[in-house]
C-alpha cells in the first residue's frame, strides 16, 4: 500500500467489534482513520487505544457525514485514495489490497459485493435484487450489491461525486452520482461475516432508498 492510501472506518456504538476491526486493518496499513459518529458507548475510547487517527462527532450525524469527515481529514494527511470499511467486523481487511489493485487498473471507484450465500438473510437478498434493478434502470450502473459499504475511490472521484446525504443513503447516492458523472467502476467479490441478524437495511429503509434514488435522478 502507498503512503497516500488511507482506510476510513466510520462507527457508531461498535464497542463490541471495533477493536478487532481496527486490529484487522492495522495488519495491512497504519493509515487508518476511525470516525466515531457520536457513539454513546465506549467506541471512541477503544479506538483511541489502537489507532492514531480517531475523530469524533459530538452528536450522531449518520454514516454519510462520518465518511465525509474521514475523507476530508484524510486529504489533509495527503491521501489520494480511500478505502471505506465498516467498523462492525463484517468486512475482512485482507481484501483492502484487492480494492487498491482495481484502482491501479484505472478505475475511479470500486464496489465490493457480498457473495450470495445461505447465511445472508432472505429479505437482504430480495431487497438487494430490487435495488440493483432500480439503480440499473435509473443510472445504468450494473451492480450486484448496492448497499455494501466496502468501497474504494480516488480523490478525484470523491471531488466529482461528493455526496450530500448524511445517513445510510450515502451508499445509494455514491452510486447515483458515479452513474451521473460516468465514473469508471468495477465490482469485486468480498466475504461477509454477519454478527447481528437484525442489523442492516430493513424493508422500510429499502423503500426510502428507492425514493432517494428517484430524488437523485432528478437532482443536478
Amino acid at each position, binding site marked *: 500500500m502507498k503512503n497516500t492510501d488511507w482506510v476510513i472506518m466510520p462507527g457508531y456504538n461498535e464497542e463490541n467489534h471495533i477493536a478487532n476491526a481496527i486490529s484487522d486493518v492495522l495488519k495491512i496499513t497504519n493509515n487508518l482513520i476511525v470516525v466515531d459518529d457520536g457513539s454513546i458507548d465506549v467506541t471512541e475510547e477503544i479506538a483511541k487505544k489502537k489507532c492514531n487517527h*480517531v475523530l469524533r462527532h459530538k452528536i450522531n*450525524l449518520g454514516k454519510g*457525514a462520518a465518511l465525509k469527515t474521514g475523507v476530508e481529514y484524510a486529504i489533509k494527511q495527503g491521501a489520494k485514495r480511500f478505502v471505506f470499511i465498516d467498523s462492525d467486523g463484517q468486512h475482512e481487511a485482507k481484501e483492502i489490497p484487492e480494492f487498491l489493485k482495481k484502482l491501479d487498473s484505472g478505475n475511479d471507484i470500486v464496489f465490493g459485493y457480498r457473495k450470495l450465500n445461505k447465511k445472508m438473510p432472505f429479505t437482504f437478498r430480495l431487497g438487494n435484487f430490487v435495488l440493483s434493478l432500480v439503480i440499473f434502470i435509473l443510472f445504468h450502473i450494473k451492480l450486484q450489491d448496492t448497499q455494501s459499504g466496502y468501497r474504494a475511490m480516488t480523490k478525484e472521484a470523491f471531488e466529482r461525486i461528493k455526496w450530500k446525504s448524511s445517513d445510510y443513503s450515502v451508499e445509494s447516492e455514491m452510486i447515483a452520482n458515479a452513474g451521473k458523472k460516468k465514473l469508471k467502476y468495477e465490482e469485486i467479490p468480498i466475504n461477509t461475516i454477519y454478527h447481528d441478524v437484525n442489523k442492516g437495511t430493513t424493508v422500510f429503509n429499502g423503500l426510502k432508498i428507492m425514493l432517494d434514488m428517484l430524488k437523485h435522478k432528478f437532482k443536478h
Partner: protein
Amino acid sequence: MNILGIQLIGIIFGIIFTFFTYINIKKDKLKVIDGTMWIIVWLLLTLVSINPMIINFIAVDIFKMSRALDFIIISSFMLMFAVLYYMYLVVKNTEKRVETLVRNIAIEQNSKKQVTNKKPKTTKRK
C-alpha cells in the same frame, strides 16, 4: 356600537400580542421583517374583532363564499401550511449547518492533536 365579550377578548388579544411582538423586535429577538409580518396579523385580528362584518364582506362579496366561517377556516389552513413550510426550510437549513459544524470540530480537534504530538520535545542541558 355594542361590543360583545368575545370581541373584547379578540381586541385585547390582538393588542397584547402586537405589544409583545414590538418588544421582541426592540430586543432583537425577532427580525424587523418577521416582526412586522406578525404585527400585521395581530392588527388584522384586532380589526376583525372590532368589526366582524369585514370578514363577511371579504368572504361573501369578494370571494363569493356562502359563509364567512368557511373563509376563516380555509385561510387559516393556508396560513398554517405556509408557516409549516417555512419552518421545514428553517429546520433543514439548521440541520445542514449543524452537520458542517460538528464535522469541522471533529477534524480540527484531531488536527490540533496531531500538531501537538509532532512538536519536538525540548530537553534541558545538564
